[in-house]
């Protein structure tokens, strides 16, 4: 794990939380969509908040996939839940909303869980065994001499 990888994990957390918030804000502006008029969902993307939310969620998906390319699923997933903690903190300190004791307890549990995982190794699966031959990791030092990887 180097700095670049921690930045990707931070991206997973921030983009998920940001995207969800923007989507939620935009959809509340639009009001509830009738089940009889589901095509209303399509016009929802014209709302700038919803559009921005979708862009952030695409960025989330890209960073999530990047993280999964070098870390275990059980290592990356707690990072996604850290977004909930972030949202609660934003609600409390930026929006001055009331955060109930039960929510603070939830925040503490998630933060504790993330701490437990973060202290351990990031990759434990032996994925290279099931990887096709041509995709096997190459030492960066050898790349210059590699013709076909």
């Amino acid at each position: 794990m180097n700095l670049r990888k921690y930045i990707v994990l931070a991206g997973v957390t921030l983009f998920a939380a940001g995207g969800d918030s923007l989507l939620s804000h935009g959809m509340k502006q639009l009001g509830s969509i009738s089940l009889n008029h589901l095509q209303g969902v399509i016009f929802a993307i014209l709302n700038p908040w919803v559009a921005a939310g979708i862009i952030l969620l695409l960025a989330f998906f890209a960073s999530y996939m990047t993280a999964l390319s070098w870390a275990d699923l059980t290592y990356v997933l707690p990072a996604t839940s850290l977004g909930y903690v972030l949202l609660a903190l934003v609600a409390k300190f930026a929006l001055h909303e009331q955060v109930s004791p039960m929510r603070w307890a939830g925040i503490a549990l998630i933060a504790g869980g993330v701490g437990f995982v973060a202290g351990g190794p990031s990759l434990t699966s032996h994925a290279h065994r099931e990887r096709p031959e041509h995709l096997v990791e190459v030492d960066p030092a050898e790349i210059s001499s590699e013709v076909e990887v």
Partner: protein
Amino acid sequence: MKHLYANLYTWSAILAIVFASVVGDVRLSRAMKQVGDVGALRRRQGLWTVIVRVLGNQNFVLGVAAMAVAFFSLLFALSWGDVSLVAPAAASLTFIGNAFAAKIFLHERVDQRRWIAAVLVAGGVALLAG
């Protein structure tokens, strides 16, 4: 009796969400392990190669399809049950399900540390959204 049916429908939809999400996460994780470190791959062969490899991976396509099923199950669940039940129940059960699935199908070493984390995070999510 009507109440019981509504509950049954809601919980069936929640289980469908959890099942589809776990299948999706496992497929996507396996796909990305097959593609390999995308940062290193991009430096060697460029972003285009990364995109082609990821989109061309069968597990990736199946994973995205499973995520779509999970999303539509969520819509059904929300139409039958309260969001305050559906969202936290689905999210925390998915966490626990993923820990089992990662151990069984991805052969990740889910040690005591990660079990504790899965349970803590699942409980925390349930409290937050509840």
